[in-house]
Each structure stands twice: as C-alpha cells, then as structure tokens.
C-alpha cells in the first residue's frame, strides 16, 4: 500500500470518526432553539403554565373554585377593602330597651326558643369584600376559576391535538407508504372530510356526540386530522423510496417496521411542528364551542364559559372576569405560538424566516 492511499484512508477514517461524534438532530435543534431568545423565553412561559396546570390537576390550586368566597361581584384589588366610612350612620340607642314583657304575649316562650336554637350550630361565614382578581356574580374567586379554566382549556387542546395527530399520522403513513388501493381509499376519505366546511363538520359532530370535555376532544380530533394526514402522507411518499428505507427492506424489515421504526423518526419534526399549530387551533375552537354551550358541562369551567358569563357582567361594569380569561388565554396562546415558531425554525432550518 502506497503512502498516499494510506493517508487517504486515514483521512476517511478521521472523517468517519468525526461523523460518528457529530451531534444528533435533536441535539442540534436544541442548540439552535436555545439561541432564539424569544422562543426560549416563550418556552419558560409555557413551562410555567404547565406547572400551574399540573398543580391544578392534582388539586393543589384552584380546587375550590366553586366556593363562594367573596361577596357577589367583589371588585379586584390586592389592597383589601376600603375602610368603612362613617357617614349618615344612625347611632344605636344606648341603655336598656323598654321592657314590654308584661304585655308581650310571646314573652314567656322566648327562653324556650333560645334553648332550642342553641341545639343547632350556626357558623358565620365571612365573605371577603374584595378578591385579588375579583369575584364573579356568585362571589366565586376569579383567580381560582381562571386557573381551573386554564387547566380544562389547555387539556382539551392538547388531548385533541394528540388524538388528531395519531389519526393523521397513522392514516397519512399508510396512505403515503402503501399507495395503491389503500392510498386511494384514504384520499377519498380525506376529500370527503375536506369538502365539508370545517365549522359545519364540527356542528354536525356536536349534534350527535353530546356535551362534555371528552366529547369536545372527540369532535375536534375527528374533524381536525386532515391537515396532518396530508402533510405526513407527502413526507411518506418522499421518504419511502429513499435509500435508507430500501436498504431496510433489503435486510428484511417488515412494512410496519419500516413505517414506524425507520421513516417515522425521520419525519417526526414535521409532525411535532404541525401538532403545535393544532394545539393553538383547538384551544381557540374549544373556547368558542364552550361559549356556544356545545363544549364543557355546566359544572365545569373553561375560558369559553368564563367569556360567556363575562358578557353579561360587562354590561354591569364588572370587567374583571373578561379581563382575567382574556389575559391568561392571550399570554398562553402567544407564548405557545412563538415557541412553536421557534421550534419549527430549530427543527427545520430551511424554513427559517419564511413567515
């Protein structure tokens, strides 16, 4: 072997070595993600919300949102109630009252009634005059209500996105990978769902499925999978003829293993980005469905039911429930969208700055 060839082999080996040590796609993405300051900050905001939702789910905060802790429509303040002002108060008469016992026919029984009243315990509940974020029309604490509402709205959005993603990925993978008859059949189903305007499809499903958190998740998932299907299908068509898939086939990998073990990890970034968009869309849809009374049940609270209550409260000048629900939703959805944008840029640098 001539020295040149050895040298060449040496470089090749060095290259090979370097490639083995090169960072994985997730590491590289994470590194890119961290450089995006807006996206990174958004991630922290989203994590804060997730921590709050977990605390609320295990019952540490917002558990007693249905308790009427304040006076109805308690105004929002951190300062506590204003001191009572002494204007126009009629002074209570001092000294003993006029004794009427000789002419009062009920007088002999007062003692007996007092005895009987003592058998029952009455507790005086003190309702606070003000609450940090105010109270609603029944005097429930808007802060706990909003936290509980956040839990349900975000839960619905995430669960529906997970379900829609599962449907879309499985159908898209089969359609794109196998093509042929299965592909045509799935394309037909897709065309049927796409030809009905989305909101009508949601209404039609809502008419038959019923109410409640689970129903909303089912409705949104069954109507919202089409975009994911389309994109995953396109990716699978592209990937299924690539060399790495064909070599997997050559060493005897079954179709299912090629779909889920070989191709799926390679398109997972597309799925993840699309899922982020779905979460945001579904949260907004849940809010509207709940507002219309097609969403969560009456004994549950979500941003949508809060907005529905807030509408009539606003007319009386009680703006705080509207403000609280809007603020929580705006902060969460903005942070989540920015995080999803940053995630897309990090996972797929080719797309950076397109939008």
């Amino acid at each position, binding site marked *: 072997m001539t020295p040149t060839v050895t040298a060449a082999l040496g470089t090749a080996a060095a290259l090979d070595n370097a490639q083995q040590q090169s960072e994985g796609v997730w590491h590289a993405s994470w590194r890119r993600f961290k450089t995006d300051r807006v996206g990174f900050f958004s991630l922290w905001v989203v994590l804060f919300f997730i921590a709050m939702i977990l605390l609320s789910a295990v019952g540490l905060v917002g558990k007693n949102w249905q308790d009427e802790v304040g006076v109805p429509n308690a105004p929002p303040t951190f300062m506590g109630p204003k001191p009572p002002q002494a204007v126009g108060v009629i002074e209570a008469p001092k000294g003993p009252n006029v004794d009427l016992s000789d002419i009062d026919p009920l007088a002999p029984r007062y003692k007996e009634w007092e005895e009987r009243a003592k058998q029952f315990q009455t507790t005086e509940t003190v309702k606070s005059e003000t609450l940090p974020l105010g109270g609603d029309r029944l005097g429930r604490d808007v802060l706990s209500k909003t936290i509980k509402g956040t839990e349900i709205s975000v839960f619905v959005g995430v669960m529906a996105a997970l379900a829609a993603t599962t449907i879309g990925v499985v159908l898209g993978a089969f359609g794109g990978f196998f093509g042929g008859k299965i592909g045509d059949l799935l394309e037909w189903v897709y*065309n*049927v769902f796409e*030809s*009905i305007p989305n909101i009508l499809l949601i209404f039609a499903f809502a008419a038959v499925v019923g109410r409640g958190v689970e129903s909303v998740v089912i409705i949104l998932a069954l109507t919202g999978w089409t975009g994911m299907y389309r994109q995953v299908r396109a990716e699978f068509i592209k990937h299924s003829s690539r060399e790495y898939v064909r070599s997997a086939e050559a060493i005897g990998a079954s179709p299912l293993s090629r779909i889920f073990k070989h191709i799926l990890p390679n398109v997972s970034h597309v799925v993840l980005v699309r899922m982020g968009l779905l979460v945001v869309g579904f949260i907004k849809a849940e809010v509207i469905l709940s507002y219309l009374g097609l969403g969560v049940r009456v004994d549950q609270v979500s941003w*949508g039911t809060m907005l529905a209550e807030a509408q009539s409260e606003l007319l009386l000048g009680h703006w705080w429930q509207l403000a609280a629900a809007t603020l929580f939703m705006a902060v969460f959805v903005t942070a989540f969208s920015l995080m999803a944008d940053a995630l897309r840029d990090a996972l797929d640098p080719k797309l950076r700055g397109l939008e």
Partner: protein
Amino acid sequence: MAAYLIRRLWQMIPTLAGVVLLVFFLFKYFGGDPAEVLGGLNASADQIKAIRQTLGLDEPVWYQLWIFVKQIVTFDWGKSWATNEAVSNLFATRLPATLTVMIPILILDVVLALPIAMWVAYRRGSLTDRSLMVVTTVALSISFLVYVIVGQYVFGFQLGWFPVQGWSDSLWTNLAVYTPLPVLLAVMVGLAPQTRLYRSFFLDELGQDYVRTARAKGMTEGTVLYRHVLRNAMIPILTNIGLQLPGIFVGSFLIEVFFSIPGLGREVLLAVNRSDFPVIQAVTIYLALLTMVINLLTDLAYKLADPRVVLK
C-alpha cells in the same frame, strides 16, 4: 377545456357520495333515535311507533339511505323538526341576511389586507414589518369572542355609534345601519391572519429573479410591485379566497349570534341545540356540494390569472 370540466365534474361524484354516506351514518348510528327526539319526553309507545313509520325508520337501512338520497336530489327535506318550517323555505329566507353581512366582510378583507401585506413585505425586516408581526401574533392569540364582546360593548353600548343589534326587512337599512359594526369587527379580526398570509406569498415572489430583472430594466417600484409581483402571487391569493368563499354562505355564526342577525349560521347553531337533524343534514350536504363547485371555479380562475397554468 370541455373535457377537463367533464372529468372534474365526474370526479365529484365519489366525493359527494362519501359526504352523503358520512352524514347519513353519522346521524343514523350516533345521533340517537329521531322518533324520540320528535316525540318528546311524554310520547307514548304508540306515538313513537307512528313517528317511526312516517319517517321510514322501520325499513331496512339501504331503503332509508334511498329515502335520504331522494330528499337530496329533489330538494325536499320536509319540515324542520323544531319549527315545522319547510327546510327549503328556511334556506331561502335565512341566506340573504348571511350574504348581506359576509360579502362586505370578504371584499374588505381582501382589499385591505393585500396593500398592507404588500407594503410590509416590501419593507421586510424594517421596524414597521417587525412590529406589525408582533402585533398580529398577539392579536391572533385573543379569542374572536373577546373582540366581539368588547367591540359591541364599546361601540354599540357605551359610545352609541352603532345599534347594539337588530335587523330590518330593507336591504339598504341593513347595509347602512345594522351591518357596519359586525363588518367592522369581523374585518378587524380577519385582517391580522390574512395580512400574515399574503405577506408570506409576496415574500416568496420578491426574492425571484424576474423582480431583479424588472428593476434592472428601470421600471418604477410601483410597476414592479403591482404589475409583476402581484400578478405572480395571484395563484396562492386566489386559492385562499376560494377557501374562504364557502364560508360566506354559512356565515360567521358568532357574528350572527351576537348581533341577532337572522342568518343561516345562527339557524344551524339553533338546529344543533334543538337536535333538528334535517336542517343540519341539508346545510352540510349542500355546502359540501357548493365547496366542490367553488374549488372547480378557483382552478378555472388560475387559468385566467396565469396563462402558464395548464388545466389537465
């Protein structure tokens, strides 16, 4: 062209059949018993039986499907279960109100969003561009409900510039008095996402070689933008408008609910709340058909906008 049209119309049939099957089986197997919905809580067994017989519910499934298809083809859906109004009459009386509100919204959305998008795309990366992107991101994260609740309260109730809600029989009164506030609010909300979308279309085109060539030839920026870039960006813009067109027939049901506009969207929502199946089924199927026709028309419009497009 004729061959293309015929093939496209032919291809619609399986999709339409799918929509019919989906709606039929959705309501048949998940929608509960229509006889119980119609009969109410106090219906006797005999009454339920009678209703089942009139609706043909005792017949085999394939025969019920046949009845369903016959209803679709003859436009004869019978009467609404809730109000006893003929479904066809319901369409005829509710659609004009929806269109009165939705057509101005669609036109204003396009007419306003295009120039703004063009302007921010042209000045890409500038402070205006970036701040507009931030504003639209935040604006998009607030629910449509909030805009309508607050807008109705501020403009209608507090300032009294517009009536809070209402509707009249005269088209001109409606256009002059009752539609401005809903249209204003809907356009305000729709503008942010539309602007973002159109901006990305323009950005795609602004980087192309022909833009540089046009500038090198000494054309004014106005000509470059409006004669070249706009024309080339027409296809995605038309696609987007085509996607929105079916929506104007069912309307923004939220707008109709908030402003008490007797339109089709509000009627569908009422039908969902009252389990009024014929109304929902009819609207869904005809809207699906309409969507397919509009998709076809959009494809034909591509040819008009861009002679390079070959319809095949």
